[in-house]
């Protein structure tokens, strides 16, 4: 059923490919801007990261070509296989990490560092799609739900064990896919609510937080009391929130080791040196002992990145400084600007007009992927498409939100933009696998029925 290859290529969603090429080229330009110095301006200078990025783009083109000529059935067929390989790689890394007493997130191949966690997203997408795409399997019934959760949580746990909090959090995006497949949206809302409560509990006095929730619940009850069971609902929300807050507070203040606390604080963009004395004075049920503070606690101001990021973006004003002209960018004032903070370069060099255009194009791109996922005629391709769109969406949301200072500093790359071979390969593989499946959707009809 796959004899008409030229016809398929025509059906590739060219709009998506063009946007992809635009984003990758734009990314390379920004990496060049952030990374090139007066001494290093040659575009293909392989001693510089922007030069390597061009190399990665070349390699990506080959990978993309290979994916496009592969029989689309291969992805369905090998879904579990790739998943198992990646899980084994993560386990090996974890093992060597234990032996070397230091977590490591990559395999070194020459000067290239292969990061299995980047590919874990791809593998998980395939595995999840394969499972939910199996004939007669739906996201229903305890067993199937448990398997889906297992497929997602296993690589997530392994990534977390490597201290790669950012990459681990990305697996949360698969719950968006499950939502599409029948998971109640309330769970996502509750999840989001609890995540917000978690952050607030660590940042603010827990008892005040509980008071605020009490007031909100009481107000809601007052205005909606004509509805049945409103009393019970607000009471349940209040008490479960209070219990959650107190347990988070207790676990954070009393059970976690100082270095564990600090990892969370750094992620939440807190100045560790300032946090402990403030927290120790706070009106709180479970007091943090300021003396428990790790002796090695760095006095570094962790808000520096975000502050510099905001200055960089703010410097852009309406139209920006233009390509390779950002003063903040060229001075390399934002740490990690060519990787996780690449959006600062966009902000400074292209201004409000450029950044807004970029955000709109990127969101259109993600929206297009969701649209394409929905139009798939078999379950495997649809689930896989949702996975691809959701992972890219999560990355985009967290990355840009972090650069804009509206989300905590979670170091994850901006897909197709940030410097890095592993992430460019894995995202391109993910995307083009989906484009291939999409291109083949007409031929796939028969196999479903």
């Amino acid at each position, binding site marked *: 059923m796959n004899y008409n290859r030229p016809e398929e290529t025509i059906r590739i969603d060219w709009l998506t490919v063009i946007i992809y090429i635009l984003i990758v080229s734009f990314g390379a330009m920004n990496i060049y801007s952030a990374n090139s110095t007066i001494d290093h301006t040659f575009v293909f200078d392989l001693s510089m990261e922007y030069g390597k990025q061009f190399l990665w783009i070349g390699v990506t083109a080959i990978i993309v070509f290979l994916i496009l000529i592969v029989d689309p059935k291969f992805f369905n067929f090998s879904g579990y296989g790739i998943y198992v390989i990646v899980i084994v790689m993560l386990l090996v890394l974890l093992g060597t990490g234990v032996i070397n007493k230091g977590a490591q997130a990559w395999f070194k191949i020459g000067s290239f560092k292969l990061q299995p966690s980047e590919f874990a997203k791809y593998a998980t997408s395939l595995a999840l799609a394969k499972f939910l795409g199996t004939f007669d399997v739906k996201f229903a019934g305890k067993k199937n739900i448990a398997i889906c959760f297992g497929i997602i949580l296993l690589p997530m746990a392994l990534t977390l064990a490597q201290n790669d909090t950012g990459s681990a959090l990305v697996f949360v995006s698969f719950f968006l896919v499950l939502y*599409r497949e029948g998971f109640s949206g309330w769970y996502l809302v509750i999840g989001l609510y609890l995540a917000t409560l978690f952050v607030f509990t660590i940042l603010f006095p827990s008892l005040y937080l509980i008071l605020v929730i009490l007031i909100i619940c009481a107000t809601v009850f007052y205005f909606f009391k004509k509805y049945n069971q409103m009393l019970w609902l607000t009471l349940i929300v209040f008490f479960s929130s209070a219990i959650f807050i107190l347990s988070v507070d207790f676990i954070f203040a009393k059970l976690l080791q100082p270095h564990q606390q600090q990892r969370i604080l750094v992620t939440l963009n807190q100045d560790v040196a300032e946090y402990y004395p403030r927290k120790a004075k706070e009106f709180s049920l479970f007091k943090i002992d300021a003396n428990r503070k790790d002796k090695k606690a760095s006095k570094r101001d962790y808000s520096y990145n975000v502050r510099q990021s905001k200055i960089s973006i703010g*410097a852009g004003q309406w139209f920006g400084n233009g390509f390779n002209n950002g003063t903040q960018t060229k001075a390399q004032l934002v740490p990690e600007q060519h990787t996780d903070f690449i959006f600062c370069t966009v902000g400074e060099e292209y201004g409000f007009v450029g950044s807004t255009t970029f955000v709109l194009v990127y969101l259109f791109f993600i929206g297009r992927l969701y649209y394409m996922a929905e139009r798939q005629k078999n379950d495997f391709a649809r689930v896989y498409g949702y996975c691809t769109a959701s992972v890219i969406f999560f990355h985009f949301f967290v990355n840009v939100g972090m650069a804009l200072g509206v989300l905590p500093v979670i170091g994850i790359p901006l897909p197709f933009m940030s410097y890095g071979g592993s992430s460019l390969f894995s995202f391109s593989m993910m995307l083009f696998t989906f484009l291939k499946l999409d291109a083949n959707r007409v031929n796939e009809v028969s196999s479903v029925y």
Partner: protein
Amino acid sequence: MEKSSKLLVFFIVLTVIGVIFITRLFFLQIVDTSNYYKALAYGSNEITIYPARGTIVDRYGKLLVYNDAVYDLMAVPQKIKNIDKLRLCNVLQIDTNEFNQRIKKASKYNTREASIIYKSLPFNIYSQLQEIIYEYPAFFIETKIDRRYNINGAAHLLGYMGEVSEKQLQVEKYYKPGDIKGVSGMEKSYELYLRGIKGKKIVLVDKFSKQQGSFAGGKFDSLPTAGQNLIASIDLNLQEYGEQLMKNKFGSIVAIEPATGEVLAIVNSPNYDPNVLVGQSRNRNFSALLLDPRKPLFNRALKAPYPPGSTFKTVQALIGLQEGVLTPDTKYPCHGGYHMGSLTVGCHPHASPLDLEHSIQQSCNAYYCFVYRSILDNPAYNSVQDAYLKWTQYLNSFGIGIKTEIDLPEESPGIVKKTQYFERVFGKNWRSSNVISLSIGQGEIGLTPLQMVNVATVIANRGYYYTPHVVKAIGDEKILLEQYKIKHKAMINIAYYDSVIAGMARVCKPGGTAGRTGIEGITICAKTGTAQNPHGAHHSIFIAFAPRDNPKIAIAVVVENGGYGAEYAGPIANLMIERYLATDKTITSRKDMLDRMLNSNLVGSSVYDAPKPDSTLRKPLLPLTAKP
């Protein structure tokens, strides 16, 4: 929910996030211009404008200390990109290695903030640099202040400036690396008044138009506030005269105006020229001074306690009178000294017995052994120890054994032992005979020259002193600090001073212990002293005040290894008094005594050369003095 409508939910979420992000972008890039300014500030340099440090004048308005501008080349290491290194190095007259080294050191300190690359630019380099500096946006020249001294002595009094240490930088945010602050003398104790408030100017660097423009219309600039000028209580003329007199001698002179506590002169010998501790050669000369075995940096006047010798008899007499164990008419015999059992305190031959007034005139040792024993063995007290404790309280009321709290750093409280000390040495029930040497100011007692002059001040004032101070007014408002308006009272009734003063008035007249040092026409009330020195010749000591009525000057002189009080300290003190009270400062009635003092040498020839001020030290181009 229908599956296709779930796609709608995704689209809604995407739209909401788009709205949030674009709103946030609008706020960061368009509404909040502070980020823009912060970024712009990166393309500019923040230049600190150093305020003029307060000047110091003497009590008659003669300039003692003023400012000179020095120029430092500063750079922000992070901004150094694509520069014509060779050209800059040529102008700076250093090789590129050295240049790279300095940049490296600066970036090690802080890559984002300006550090000094070339300290105190020589003038020729400075003027060449001015021509090209605009082509080096990471570099700028900062004008700083260094001190110049209009006197080549009084170094211990004026003090010197030094670079702020790294430790201080962390504590005191006012200072930046490379700043100097007062580290001794008046420069240190009045640092807060002298330093003023720094200003800043943010200039945009435009590499192409070779211009430095003001940033944001000067919105973030601030002008410096000059430091406050000080009027010292010092009499420059008297100070210099004292330094001449002390040449080739070790010791010190302190003179005070009794009515106010204002210090008229503080002379230390050996001394050094304060101009050697400025500018480029500061560190080199400082090490030389530090290594000099004569210890020219040592402030004897405030830090060296000497046994006061016979000058202490004045204090003993006053305490005896106050305690009621002595009257002006009390007579004690002296036959070559004080004898008691095996104990003998010798005395020179003189008429016997003597009353109080003549005991001071003749400085009879035996008399004060009787006096002191009657103080300590006073039956009004339970024990010698109690009486001794009371005695030390009397001393403290004279400023002996405690710091005077003069407005100069690093003062010694002198030596007054506690009773416990004697318990350790002589056992629990020690007796007055154990401490008999204290009666004549020898043994376990030490006064700094400053404390000695304070004793003279108390007697001159008949019962009180003001905390000695070297600054009589601060700033344009001519403020005198509150602590110098407080009268400290000695625990002696005013009535008891008469006989002691009468005795002191006889000392410089024929028949007195310094009978040949008197000055025609001035009644000098004085007391000679000789401090036994276990290491060599006795120290010559003299305290005095004049005139007898309404005294204008109190003085203490210590000349190490100068022998008897009348040999060196007496003549020097009396010449100083003459000079201070005379209207014509050029003549003296005691030319003989002056020549003898100027020509005497108690030090011997020295192989050590005092550091000389930098010969290249140019006259100030731009004397940065605050308002006169």
